[in-house]
C-alpha cells in the first residue's frame, strides 16, 4: 500500500497550490496515472480521502487520467502504443524500445474553490 504515501505527497502538492493562490480549499485534483507507474488506480482512489483528511483537500474529487503505454522504436523510428507486459515494437518486432509514456504519476492540475464551505470537521460517511 505505497499508494497512501503517494497520496500524501499528492495532497501536499495540491494544498501548496491552494495556499499559494490564497484559496480556502481544493475542489478537484487531476492525476495522470500510467499503467507502469507502479500505483494502482483503485488503491489511489481508496487512499486519497484518508490522505486528504484535515487538509485543504478534504472532500476534494480525485480525477484519474489514464495514460496509454507508448514506446519509441529506434529500429524503425516509429512511436506506437504497447502493452504494459509487452513493450516490444508492435510494428517491426524490435525488443529494445524506449518507453515514452505510460509511467506517469503526475499531478496535472488542481481545481480550487472560492468558498470555504464544506470542510467536514466530524466524520461524514458517504451515503
Amino acid at each position, binding site marked *: 500500500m505505497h499508494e497512501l504515501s503517494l497520496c500524501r*505527497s499528492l495532497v501536499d*502538492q495540491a494544498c501548496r497550490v491552494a495556499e499559494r493562490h490564497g484559496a480556502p480549499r481544493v475542489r478537484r485534483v487531476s492525476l495522470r496515472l500510467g499503467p507502469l507507474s*507502479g500505483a494502482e488506480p483503485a488503491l489511489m482512489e481508496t487512499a486519497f480521502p484518508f490522505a486528504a483528511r484535515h487538509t485543504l483537500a478534504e472532500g476534494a474529487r480525485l480525477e484519474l487520467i489514464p495514460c496509454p503505454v507508448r514506446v519509441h522504436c529506434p529500429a524503425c523510428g516509429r512511436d506506437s502504443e504497447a502493452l504494459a507486459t509487452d*513493450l516490444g515494437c508492435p510494428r517491426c518486432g524490435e525488443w529494445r524500445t524506449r518507453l515514452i509514456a505510460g509511467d506517469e504519476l503526475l499531478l496535472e492540475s488542481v*481545481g480550487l474553490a472560492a*468558498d470555504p464551505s*464544506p470542510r467536514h470537521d466530524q466524520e461524514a460517511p458517504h451515503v
Partner: protein
Amino acid sequence: MCETCGCALPDRHGPARDDRTVEVLASLKTRNDRLAHHNRAHFDAAGVLVVNLMSSPGAGKTRLLEATIEALGDRHRLAVIEGDLETENDARRIRAKGVPAVQITTGSACHLDAAMIHDALHALSLEALDLLFIENVGNLVCPASFDLGQHASVTLLSTPEGDDKPLKYPVMFRASDLVLVTKCDLLAVLDDFAVEAVAAHVRRLACPAPVLEVSASAGRIDGWLAWLEARLAERRRSVFHPVAAHAGGDLLTRPRSPA
C-alpha cells in the same frame, strides 16, 4: 449538501465547477527523487558503489549477501543497509560476517524511500566503503516506485516462485539492471521453471538486464561476483577520471596552434 444524492461530499458527483484551475504538471515522486539525487551525490563524493537488492520475501537476498561478503570481504570494504518491516534478524546475520549493517525497521511501510536511506547514512562512514548494499523490503511491487539514490538495481527471482514473474511485476523487472535467478540448485527438481523463459520475459519488457543463475548455498555465485567487480572497476574509473573524454578541447587552456 450534494444535490445528486444528499451526501456530505458534494464534489464527488456531478459537474462541480472549479472556481480556478491551476496547471501543475509535477511528479508525485518529486520530493523522493530530490532526496535520492542528494543521496547519490553523497555516494559519488565518497566513491562508493551502491546496489539496491529487491525481491519477494524469502527469495534469498540475505543469504546471497552472506555469500557475497565471504567472497569479497577481503578485497573490498562492504556495508549493508537492511530494510524490514520488523526485527533486526537480517542485520545480525550480516554483522556476524564482520560487516557493518544498519537496520531500518519500516513498521508497516512496504518499501524503503530515499529519506529512510538518508537517515541510515548517518550511521555509516561512506568514505571508508567501496560497496554498499541496500537490502530492500521483501516485496515485488512497492520498492520499484522509489529511487533511493542507488547506482544499480538488482532483482532476485527464486526458482520456486515461477518463471512468469517478470510479466506479473513489470514495473519492478523493467527497471532492473540485473536479474538474478536464485536457488538455481533447485532447478534439478523443478520441472516448470526455465531460466530462458525468465530472460525472454525480461526482454519483452524492453529491458536489457542480464539474467544470471546463482545458488548461494551451493556456492555458485561467480557470475554475480564478476558483475559486481565490473561495476566496481567502472566506478573507480569514473572517480579517477571525472572529465568525460568527449569534453576534450574546450576545457584545455593551451594556446591554439595557428591554422
